């Protein structure tokens, strides 16, 4: 067994090495990958690249790292020493300090330097490399922190889409329309008990759940899990009842669940919905929060992934090793997610790359329209929108827009490169 798995490991390594080789042949895509790496670096280290606090400083013979300290403080672990609470670090007399390249936070207004042009010298400390906006906020700092927001929206939204898409696509592709068989009685009883379980677990307890939310999030989660437990408990009843009732031949007759048809229809519904319009509406209803934006974009982005996985699994489920797994008596679940899915994932990455580009574009568009993103958060789209207030402030239009363009382009290029690298038909 050990040597066998080693062998498959080697084979899969070989496969990926091949893909990597093919991908590297595409110079544009390779270049795009490097840019993504660079942008991810900016996104991760945004706090070190643009901050109004020094990265490292020596003050009254003590060494501090205010940027790192801020992380611990916001996590509730650390505390500012009394003389540093609410200090403006720029006016502090320090013996030694390493500052960020951009000495501003994107949200700090400075009314003495509004609409500063890019690259111009200014009297205070720290240049405004890319100028400032109507409140004197530094554009370069906004760009750096905007990178983080754009990337996290892209990654989280696509993460959500990935899980939904892979899960639904796997189930539909693996079971198809005829492989998941359950007895008539089990289906009937489950359908009957589903509303009942919902009634007793959630509707009857709606006041308890609502009140617990007012107490604390923790109690709410506890009560919610309790409700979930009720739900599962009640659903156990029909499944236990099935065991004796199955013996009756008429009731025990197996019927197959058309999971594939259900998913295809479902995808058709989701695709018919004008996604951008619906996202606009949902985000307008929900409270402005970047997490809502991520979640909602993610909830609508999965159909492409599901289609890919479904198609792959339909091929894979006919392969011998899946039959072998079946013959060995592995559970469907184990066969699906442990053996079939890992081999179906490679084409999904194409969809994910394009999806990240789309998600970043949607987030930029939403914040450009001023919908969904909280007012105290600076994003690329918001900076771009600020340019509409002053037609001479060209830097507000050019730099953020360029950032959006480059990011969307490189992810699209990666998607194209992956398509070429993974599709053997195109290899010549």
């Amino acid at each position, binding site marked *: 067994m050990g040597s066998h798995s080693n062998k498959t490991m080697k084979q899969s390594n070989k496969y990926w090495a091949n893909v990597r080789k093919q991908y590297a042949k595409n110079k544009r895509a390779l270049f795009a990958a490097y840019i993504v790496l660079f942008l991810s670096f900016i996104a991760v280290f945004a706090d070190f690249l643009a901050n109004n606090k020094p990265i490292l400083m020596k003050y009254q013979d003590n060494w501090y790292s205010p940027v790192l300290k801020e992380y611990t403080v916001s996590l509730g672990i650390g505390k500012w020493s009394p003389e540093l609470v609410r200090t403006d670090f720029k006016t502090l007399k320090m013996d030694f300090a390493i500052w960020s390249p951009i000495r501003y936070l994107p949200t700090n207004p400075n009314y003495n330097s509004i609409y500063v042009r890019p690259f111009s010298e200014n009297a205070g400390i720290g240049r405004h490399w890319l100028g400032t906006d109507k409140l004197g906020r530094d554009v370069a700092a906004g760009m750096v922190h905007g990178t983080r927001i754009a990337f996290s929206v892209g990654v989280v939204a696509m993460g959500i889409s990935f899980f939904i898409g892979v899960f639904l696509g796997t189930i539909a592709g693996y079971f198809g329309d005829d492989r998941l068989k359950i007895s008539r009685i089990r289906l009937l009883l489950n359908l009957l008990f589903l*509303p*009942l379980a919902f*009634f*007793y677990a959630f*509707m*009857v307890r*709606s*006041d308890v759940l609502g009140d617990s939310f007012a107490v604390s999030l923790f109690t709410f989660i506890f009560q919610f899990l309790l409700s979930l437990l009720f739900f599962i408990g009640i659903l156990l009843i029909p499944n236990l009842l099935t065991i004796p009732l199955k013996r009756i031949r008429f009731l025990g007759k197996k019927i197959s669940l058309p999971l594939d048809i259900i998913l295809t*229809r479902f995808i*058709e*519904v989701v*695709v*018919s*919905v*004008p996604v*951008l*319009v*619906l996202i*606009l*509406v*949902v985000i*307008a*209803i929900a409270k402005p929060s970047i997490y809502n934006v991520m979640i909602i974009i993610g909830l609508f982005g999965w159909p492409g992934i599901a289609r890919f996985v479904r198609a792959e699994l339909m091929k894979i489920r006919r392969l011998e090793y899946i039959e072998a797994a079946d013959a060995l008596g592995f559970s469907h679940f184990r066969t699906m997610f442990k053996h079939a899915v890992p081999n179906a994932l490679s084409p999904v990455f194409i969809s994910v790359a394009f999806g990240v*580009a789309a998600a970043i*574009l949607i987030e*930029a*568009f939403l914040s*450009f*329209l001023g*919908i969904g993103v909280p007012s105290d958060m600076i994003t690329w789209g918001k900076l*771009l929108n600020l*340019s*509409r207030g002053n*037609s*001479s402030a*060209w830097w507000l*239009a*050019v730099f953020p*827009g360029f950032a*959006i*363009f480059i990011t*969307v*382009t490189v992810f*699209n*290029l990666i998607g*194209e490169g992956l398509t070429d690298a993974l599709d053997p038909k195109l290899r010549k």
Partner: protein
Amino acid sequence: MLFRYILKRILIFIPTLVIISLVIFLLDKYIPGDPVLRGLQSEDLITEKIYLERWESFNLNYPTFYFSFTSKAYPDSLHLIPHKEKRTTLETLIRQSGNWERTQQYFQVIQLMEKAVDAAESDSTNADKLIRLRVNLNNLYDETKPDKIERKLRKLNVIFSTTLSLNALKTPFDNLQNAYQNLQNDKTLWKNYVPTIQWHGLENQYHIWILGNKPWWNRTKNIFAISDKIASTSIDKNTIEIEENGYYKFQPKFDLIENNGRLRTADLSNKVLFEVSIDGKSSSYKTKDLENAEAIFYAKKGDQILIEIGLKPLTKSYQLTYNYSLAATQLLHYNPNKQSKGFLRGDFGKNFQLKPVSQIIKTGIFWTILISTLSIILTYLISIPLGVYSARKKGTRVDNILSTFLFMLYSLPNFWVATLLILFLGGYLGWFPIFGLGDIPEGASIMETASIRAYHLILPLFCWTYPSLAFLSRQMRGGMLNTLGQDFIRTARAKGLEEKTVIWKHGFRNSLLPIITLFANVFPRMVSGSIAVEVIFGIPGMGKILLDAINNNDFPVVFAIVMLTALLTMVGYLIADILYSIVDPRIKYK
């Protein structure tokens, strides 16, 4: 075979539409806040009368859906209570007691007491007490916690014991205390644990929204024309002579005690019976509740209508405490205008200013259709030759440059391009107007108007067109490359056919699919517009209307546009699928 495929495709279309409409309907229902007050800037100006009018205009006086799934403790008529907060309080009280009868009585007694307080004469000794009474009573509508309600009642008790001049209000207050005691004593909590499904019938909000409650086939036009004439006929006598043929709606109004305030009771036991006889033929009507008493009948000119009204015996608790008086009864001309025609017949309901949504949308649809039609024509004219050309020159320098250029164009966000164009070509160089569609001077000729409009439309049209142009060119190139690599093209060339014939007759026809796909997207884009372009250039099309509606919390408009877009998206896919099957006979009609 093809016909069967199309039929099947249309049949699939219906459930998809139902599901999408349900999702949109649910979204609408789950928006926090009172739907009656949505979009209004200040709620102070809304009197009870206006509130009820709005409530009815939005069809909120109907049940939400065909059925409801609740516990046995709930009545089937909660939707008849207009105020959302009151409804929420009632629901909580029902869940706490399990007894709808008692909960209802408690609430009605609060209302009665409120009316008594309003009617009480205030003088210098009790003016502030009356205000405190009113505030405390009003708070009771929101209060669900027993200890808090008891505290409020004790407070009221203190007010009564210290102010002798308020003795007239003592009886309603005692009733209130009794009703609360009854509510606490007669709990039937077991009802909370019995699930029930209640059937509400076709007259529900969802059904009215989609299909309307106006009959689809009848002679309503005739009635509409003569509406005002009879509306003024008030009847003290019970016999009315009909002056014109038509449908009539008889609506008796029942008011509680002498007061003019309208009581909306959800109590099923207060059924009203009345009979309408036309020329000796009588039919009796029964109503669900006091407010919705009505009879709709057809009468000819000269008919003698005799109307008799009687109330069914009231429930005990009512008879003990209150009397109903029959206020003015009137014969209204039945006005079918009040009924909704439903979404599918082009009636999108009313927006927060009570304007018909369809009118609002109509103003925007012209510009959107104009620009998208122009844009589509341009896209096809440019991108098809471009894609084919690029595919023919595959691997050459021209193709490489063209592909890179198209790829860049494809990735350029059009809201950025639009902003840049406005900034540089509009603001900096001043070559183009940057906002709106231009003012037309009075007496301008058609040519002048057209040229002003065209001048204003150049930049928006460019921003609208280039993304789909880039997309289609790339698709066209891909599709063409795929086709040109096939054996039949080689055969055609080997046959010695002209290159032109090979490309356009054999190659092109087989790479039509991307063109059809883009065509499928025309419809949804017409409706939702290219939001960015319209907003940035200030074009009053659908996209701008949508965004303005979102910013104004004007949800009837928002959901109408979403629904319309979804509907047209599906129609687009339907047409595309049918076109696919016509163009490419290999697609199986499964």
